[in-house]
């Protein structure tokens, strides 16, 4: 008997198990993206992807390399149907297609495993996979899914028990489930977005061998990363993106880490800043053998010891993901410390709260501006008050002085050039990225703090705003503030810093005087080369 409901739910695809009949020829171009442009009008003024052309062939692992914000993830999201390109063409196995949804992409044989897993934690592995099956209905036997999961696990050595609950699995196993979820549809092309960011080294090794066996099976793998070692170890070809543009596509065997770093960070023009030699002040920040754990419990900051003095800018250079974020969070009280000590103006601040750090005179310009730097549902004036709302003269015995706050906010708006329709009535949500950053700079810097921790302070700003920020930092330095500047932009690091520390895999590789080094040397250290 045919169950009418089942029939209804089964419409469309006849690939109940997603088996693809054709065998893939090695070297065949599976997926080709031509002249892809993506813009986010109103959010960013520049193009996020600027005429990028990119292809994946059967049997290869193609790495997509670039710094944060280079456009890697946006590219992947376009190929897998999460975003629509503003213009450009996509060809799958020689046929032009338009991909309107992740479902379309899967139907065309393109699957993506996301950076953060999208699994339902209390369900089992098989149940999670069944969730994504469009043909799934109440009569679809889970045992069938389980059987196929076992089959796929065996074929690629992806060991996962289909009956295990996701919440009981390690990060590496969850990653494997995420890949299995995609493999279930037998994609020609598998896209992985920074899959090792949550994995332990051995787990990463296992993943690499799985990916190699999938490539050997004739699939094309797109591997997104900003880690050079992974590119060198794993990939057959590598494409480098910088600021939305494709710099080059190379055979991995014909390039070197050093060349890749140069392509990632671009030509660095050193503009020697004319500035007075600021009088070195007392030690503002001192870290003694600091150890901090990352999100998944793996060590992110691994024994860092540095000092920053008043009147000095210490630049922290490094490819993203080498512990800079965790370092910044630890020295502003936002993240717990595993071992080591944080001294601020001689006072031991290890394990203290964000408020204690603020009271000690630490300003924090956070990397995630909208997520932690602003309350988007509140007004401009209220956002400017985040540090000062409990301090006189804005607050008297707990009661806020609205007119004084208005005056102050008005001053900040004109001094820092924040473009906002009003002070009290419009939600900060509608402010552009640049104006959000000006708001944060105004809030964190107007009191001329003694110690400034700035993470990517000019990222995404236009040229004028960048200049303004740099002038501001120089002026504060001249007045004796100590500044720790974390940036991926080497030009900024060289233009602003007195000394440059390079961070690699949670450690400080070396600290150099800005005048005694050059971008090439720093670039090599960023790539992890020992000198």
């Amino acid at each position: 008997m045919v169950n009418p409901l089942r029939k209804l739910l089964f419409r469309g695809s006849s690939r109940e198990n997603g088996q693809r009949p054709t065998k893939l020829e090695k070297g065949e171009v599976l997926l080709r993206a031509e002249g892809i442009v993506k813009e986010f009008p109103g959010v960013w003024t520049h193009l996020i992807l600027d005429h990028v052309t990119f292809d994946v062939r059967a049997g290869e692992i193609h790495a997509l390399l670039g710094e944060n914000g280079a456009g890697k993830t946006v590219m992947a999201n376009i190929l897998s149907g999460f975003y629509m390109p503003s213009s450009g063409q996509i060809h799958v196995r020689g046929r032009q297609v338009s991909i309107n949804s992740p479902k379309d992409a899967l139907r065309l044989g393109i699957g993506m495993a996301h950076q953060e897993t999208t699994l339902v934690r209390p369900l089992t592995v098989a149940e999670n996979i069944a969730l994504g099956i469009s043909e799934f209905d109440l009569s679809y036997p889970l045992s069938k899914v389980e059987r196929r999961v076992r089959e796929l696990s065996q074929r690629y050595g992806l060991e996962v028990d289909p009956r295990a609950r996701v919440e009981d699995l390690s990060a590496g196993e969850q990653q494997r489930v995420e890949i299995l979820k995609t493999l279930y549809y037998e994609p020609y092309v598998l896209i992985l977005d920074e899959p090792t960011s949550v994995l332990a080294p051995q787990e990463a090794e296992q993943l690499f061998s799985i990916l190699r066996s999938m490539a050997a099976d004739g699939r094309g793998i797109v591997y997104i990363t900003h880690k050079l070692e992974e590119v060198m170890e794993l990939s057959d070809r590598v494409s480098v993106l910088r600021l939305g543009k494709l710099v080059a596509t190379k055979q991995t065997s014909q390039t070197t880490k050093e060349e890749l770093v140069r392509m990632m960070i671009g030509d660095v023009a050193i503009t020697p800043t004319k500035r007075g030699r600021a009088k070195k002040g007392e030690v503002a920040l001192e870290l003694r053998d600091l150890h901090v754990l990352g999100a998944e419990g793996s060590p992110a900051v691994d024994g860092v010891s540095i000092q920053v003095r008043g009147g000095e800018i210490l630049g922290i250079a490094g490819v993203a993901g080498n512990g800079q974020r965790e370092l910044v969070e630890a020295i502003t009280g936002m993240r717990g410390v595993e071992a080591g000590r944080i001294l601020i103006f001689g006072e031991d601040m290890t394990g203290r709260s964000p408020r204690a750090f603020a009271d000690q005179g630490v300003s924090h310009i956070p990397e995630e501006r909208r997520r932690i730097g602003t309350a988007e549902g509140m007004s401009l004036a209220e956002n400017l008050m985040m540090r000062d709302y409990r301090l006189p003269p804005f607050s008297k015995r707990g009661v806020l002085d609205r007119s004084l706050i208005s005056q102050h906010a008005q001053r900040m708006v004109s001094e820092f050039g924040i473009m906002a329709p009003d002070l009290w009535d419009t939600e900060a949500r509608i402010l552009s990225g640049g104006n959000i950053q000006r708001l944060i700079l105004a809030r964190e810097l107007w009191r001329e703090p003694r110690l400034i921790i700035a993470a990517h302070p000019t990222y995404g700003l236009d040229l004028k705003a960048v200049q303004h920020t740099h002038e501001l930092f120089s002026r504060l330095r001249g007045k004796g503030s100590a500044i720790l500047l974390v940036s991926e932009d080497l030009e900024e690091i060289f233009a602003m810093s007195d000394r440059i520390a390079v961070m690699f895999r949670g450690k400080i590789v070396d600290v150099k005087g800005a005048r005694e080094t050059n971008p090439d040397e720093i670039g090599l250290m960023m790539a992890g080369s020992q000198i």
Partner: protein
Amino acid sequence: MSERLWSTLRSVAPPVVAIAVGLFVGALLMLSFGFDPVRGYVALFRGSYGSPEAWMESLAFSTPLMVTAITFAVGMSAGLFNICAEGHMYMGAAGAIAVGGMVSLPPGLHLVAATAAAMLVGGLWALPAALLKMWRGVHEVVSTIMFNWIAFWFVLYLIRFHITDPGRAERATPAMITARYPVLGGSLTGVIFVVIAFCVAIYFLLWHTGLGYELRLAGDNPDAARYAGVSFRRVILLTFLIGGLAAGLAGGSQILGRPPSWTVYATLGNLLNLGFQGIGVALIGRNHPIGAIFAAVFFGGLAHGGRFMEYEVGVSAEMVGAINGIIVIALALPEILRIVKRVRAVKE
């Protein structure tokens, strides 16, 4: 100033539209049951706002809703889904009876003491749920639902065995004359002024003090609040405490300020659901303490006028419940549409 006016209008528009939708769908419902919706609504609104007497009754109905709405609204401002008002209200009523009905105090002082007792008992009842959330991370929806039931049976037990009216076993001891708010007319008493003053005080706390700022910041973006150095435990405690005081006052208002019974029956019939109705009132009032006052007047009017609709046109008073429900759904619709739109916008 005109910008201010516009933004106020913008925030008032959704509930007004939702109310219109609710009334419209209610009319369709009446039609489908063979009643004349025009006559129904005329009876409803004449009954609720048609005369000074009608206004007094409607306001009497709305008084407890203003403060149970505050409980939910303050919770939402802080990002907590606090649905504890029902239980706090029962406890507050018990507190009001304990002091207002069983202790003799001089006039004036007695009223103040009984009101304070209602609020304090309500506030204390908030502590277990608050502490569970602060120390063990127990979600407030789960804990408050359980505490609501505990309060229900506990107060029922008190009425049966400890605060029973010696003359009439089916109810608790009524508030003494010295602990009753002066009657303004009909069922309306002076307690409404206390309730409105409380709403205004909460408005001031939320929008003009550092504590209120912390609370709203934590509600808008917990990560930013942490960054700004806000203590979550303090925010949770404060939110629950205000919620408890507010709902306690709601319970007290039904004992010390609601003729003719001035007490609670052993079924809790005259208190039942006032706390949960506060959630709808808060939503219509856009989770704003002043908005809650106006929304409560509307809901109170519906509750009172519904009886006239049944009496004069034959539409059962439960229709009011249906209209209330449709209004809340209509109010939620724009948010749902916004989410759909956002998903589409991201794709393009």
